[in-house]
């Protein structure tokens, strides 16, 4: 396959960026999207040009490092996968592919297609955990959890923190990411204990970081590589409402 890549290049956070076109030739349809970029980068190194920087690691769709806004969609045209699992067979020979970084105020560009997603870490640090210390824990089977509940919690827990939800959302809202964690813990008996504080703290942090407001467009669910449902957002909304109504002055 021969392709033209229209790639966003930006030397660093403080410098202005621009699109540059790169032709690539003779790409195997079985190559993955990132392998195609590897090939481009090898060529750029040979030509003494600066290779394109992008985040990637596991290359099997689970670490959440890879990002890339491909032809207007996070993780490209196929559903339910990350960029690293996207294979070139999904593109047409001769096509021009536009590759942009995630765009959101809380995700500043570091270089080229690489963005800083530490905002997600900060949200988790604000409350995305169950406050248990190591050791002194009751037996794992002490609390039975209905299979259905465990399954729903697992659906939510499948989030890989890639940020596609933010990237896809017209409002750059992080609701699906935050909701996945809130909902996972709110459903499990272990997580119920501090559910009220958790949802308040995580939502407050999310707002503080400058993510947009959710307007229920559901683009996040459509583009989530793990197909996490917006029903978790509803769950977070109700958790939040209950927590607000029940909160008392300290």
């Amino acid at each position, binding site marked *: 396959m021969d392709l033209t890549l229209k790639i966003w290049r930006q030397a660093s956070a403080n410098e202005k960026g621009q699109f540059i076109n790169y032709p690539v030739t003779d790409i195997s349809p079985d190559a993955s999207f990132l392998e195609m970029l590897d090939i481009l980068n090898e060529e750029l190194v040979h030509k003494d040009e600066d290779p394109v*920087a992008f985040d990637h690691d596991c*290359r099997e769709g*689970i670490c959440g490092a890879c990002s890339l806004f491909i032809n207007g969609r996070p993780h490209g045209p196929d559903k*339910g*996968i990350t960029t690293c699992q996207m294979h070139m067979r999904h593109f047409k020979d001769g096509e021009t592919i536009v590759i942009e970084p995630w765009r959101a105020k809380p995700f500043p560009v570091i270089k080229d297609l690489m963005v800083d997603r*530490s905002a997600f870490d900060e949200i988790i640090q604000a409350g995305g955990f169950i406050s248990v210390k190591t050791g002194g824990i009751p037996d*794992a089977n002490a609390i039975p959890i209905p299979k259905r509940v465990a399954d729903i919690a697992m659906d939510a827990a499948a989030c890989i923190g890639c940020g596609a939800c933010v990237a896809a959302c017209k409002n750059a809202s992080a609701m699906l990411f935050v909701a996945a964690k809130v909902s996972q813990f709110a459903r499990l008996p272990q997580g119920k204990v501090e559910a009220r504080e958790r949802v308040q703290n995580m939502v407050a942090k999310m707002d503080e970081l400058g993510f947009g407001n959710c307007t229920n467009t559901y683009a996040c669910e459509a583009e989530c590589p793990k197909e996490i449902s917006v029903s978790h957002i509803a769950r977070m909304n109700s958790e939040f409402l209950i927590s607000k109504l029940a909160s008392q002055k300290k």
Partner: protein
Amino acid sequence: MTKLDAKIPQGPLAEKWTTYKQDLSPVNPANKRRLEIIVIGTGLAGASAAASFAELGFKVKAFTILDSPRRAHSIAAQGGINAAKNYPNDGDSIYRLFYDTIKGGDYRAREANVYRLAEVSNNIIDQCVAQGVPFAREYGGLLDNRSFGGALVSRTFYARGQTGQQLLLGAYSALSKEVGKGNVQMYNRRDMMELVIIDGRARGVIMRNLVTGELERYSAHAVVLATGGYGNVFFLSTNAMASNGSAIWKAYKKGAFFGNPAFTQIHPTCIPVKGDYQSKLTLMSESLRNDGRIWVPKHKEDAQKIRDGQLKPTEIPEDRRDYYLERRYPAFGNLVPRDVASRAAKERCDAGFGVGRTGLAVYLDFADAINRLGKQVIEARYGNLFQMYEKIVDENPYETPMMIYPAVHYTMGGLWVDYELQTTIPGLFAAGEANFSDHGANRLGASALMQGLADGYFILPYTIQSYLNDQIRVPFFKTDLPEFDQAENSTKATIDRLLSIKGKNTVDSYHRKLGLIMWDHVGMGRNKEGLEKAIRLIRELREDFWNNVRVPGKNEMVNPELEKALRVADFLELGELMAKDALQRKESCGGHFREEYQTEEGEALRDDENFSFVSAWEYKGADQEDVLHKEILEHEFLHVTQRSYK
């Protein structure tokens, strides 16, 4: 040899860990605040250790090479985590888990460590459930188990095909909790460049900030390396792109002994290689072997037709298929340990029965299971794996058998550590895959997660205190000491040298070449001639690398090529040590198969008389040969037998 003291507590096997904990004098809470620990790596071992240290009250600095601690490669583990809970009532026990692990490791692991691992395995499950890890459950609400290779009981806990992810997110949440409280200082996008040793003790590190290129200095009272394995020395492996051996290699060159570098695990169920552009291999969980049956055509002509695309696997009738694992190992069938399954696949493909375009693949067939259990059950068990396969290969595994082939997956070798997980450098600890400790010559499935978390949650938080409790008078270190200057300068010199070569070959081209050498000669089948050749080739390649590699750009920027170059430079040395170790071990055991040493049936032939030891290598300098030390393995409690899964 006297330098190797494993510090195994006295007493009966089952009481060693209890005795150790009783005898330990912990650091008093007020003093913990005055002690700092550096943790490199935030995978299962690193994140759990950092979180647990911080909970105890120590000051922790944690580092990850990635943009978030949540992305460490532990996340990719699919199948599950072992524990001796015996929930299914099938006769499991701590002893049985211990026994299976030692036997699975072909009697090349330290008994006391493995027993402790089995002992704390149960606590791990409790801990993870309390953290909100959504393990699979039965309809009654209790935890579900499945079986894994090398075991006759079901003791594997799982969260769909994403167990590693869920466990890591559990550890990450614990770590995040402590970061939020200010007990852990978290540093993302940092790569360890050098270990700083002051007065013979590990006291700090030089880190490269991957965004600015700046070399940063950090000091502490102790350093924990939890940087994972070095399987990427093979270029193509199931490891993540950033997985590397540099941190432990730096430690090795500063005096930490390297244990069993040759012990590499080749995982039998990976998606076969497709083209030379390929950057990594994708694992298909071992759990698939619970329901999938592995076969190749019984007749070479059928195999040939499949390779030529004239025949489909579904068109081959039952009596023309060779379910070779079931044939050779009736007791364990498709669930033999990984090394056995991998070698058997290689044997069939080498003999000309392989399928796929390249002939380097065998079938993993779910037709029987789908008939027996229905598509829905299979989908519930392995849905995400099947989807993953389909995305990569573009074939539907519900309809046509999967194609699989072995690939490098895990390195049992790593920094040599004693019972306390301390390396031969005082104050330097190694946890998880970065140490050599518990898996002997072959790791059983679902044991890596167990070991990582055992080290981090339940072992290091105790054992590190035995080191730290005589450090309470040592004040916080300044980073302007000459030792830091020296370490930073040597790093800077290496970086400058790499950038100044401006040769004609890319870093990846060297990495690929190294990978091929390793795969061909230090891979699944090894022999004297090949290993000697590998050593020679690696040396030549290294020479070439330092003269002709091209690293573009400068240090003071995001420079992935430079990062890779630094890692490949280390792999080019580490690969040689692996070959040397494989050469000296004149026996076959576990994942280490020396073709000269096999039974008439082609099974591994161990030599317990001469090789029942851990090889611990000592670095002596660039121009000197590494020195081999031996930690003799005393099998006090287990009767050593020829490993048989027949």
